[in-house]
């Protein structure tokens, strides 16, 4: 029962966040690049003011899977690296924390671009 409740919360929180993105699309005809940038900045802000971890404990994947989680790990990496490495951490922290995701996205995109052909022109 406990696990069912967790998944329900994940579904509801994740769904509402994605719906907010759709609301932005409908009301402003915004492009997908701007949506992604907006949500990344929201994530950076939530982490910087220290709210994100509380939401993350509660909503788990519901907030970590949306791109808000990506922004939060950028900020978390920068803050953590400043604590351990001092000044250098300002520059190394953000990308170090998100290296896995960025490298995976670039690597797999390159691989599949070599394998598959375009579908959009049909």
């Amino acid at each position, binding site marked *: 029962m406990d696990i069912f409740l967790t998944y329900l919360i994940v579904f509801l929180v994740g769904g509402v966040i994605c719906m907010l993105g*759709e609301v932005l699309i409908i009301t402003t005809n915004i492009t997908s690049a701007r949506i992604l940038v907006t949500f990344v900045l929201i994530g950076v802000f939530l982490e910087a003011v220290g709210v994100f971890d509380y939401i993350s404990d509660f909503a788990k994947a519901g907030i*970590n899977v*949306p*791109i808000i989680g990506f922004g939060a790990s950028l900020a978390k990496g920068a803050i953590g690296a400043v604590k351990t490495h001092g000044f250098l951490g*300002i520059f190394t922290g953000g990308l170090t924390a998100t290296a896995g995701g960025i490298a995976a996205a*670039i690597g*797999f995109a*390159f691989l599949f*671009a070599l394998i598959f052909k375009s579908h959009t022109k049909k």
Partner: protein
Amino acid sequence: MDDKKRNETYNKYVMSKIPKTKPWPSLFNSFWVGGLICVLGQGINDIYMLVFPSLSEQTAWALTLITLIFIASFLTGIGVYDQIGKFAGGGSIVPITGFSNSIASPSIEFKSEGIIYGICVKMFTIAGPVIVFGVVSSIVVGLIYWIISLF
């Protein structure tokens, strides 16, 4: 015809040609598709924690996100993800899978222009601004914390 009037009629024409999304069904679709992608992520994470109990929470999350990115790039490659995107709108853009799709989709589409100028350049048409804004804001946050830590 003066410029102002011409611009007005042109803008009206453009607005009439922009594809209109029906608000209520698209809100509902983006809600349940987005929620489902998050549930999928939670499921993958729980399976990793179950199979490899020695993983730290952070490592398990990183593996989960990489798995989701892999799935999304593959679905983009076989042309399925763009269909989901047409149906779900924000539900397919906002999750990390949308970020992955925004990298994979143009690189596959512009493959015909060559590896360097097609795949590698077009890869970052959407992801570029995201990474730039993300990195710059993380530098700002790091800088603020560094200054605070001085006192």
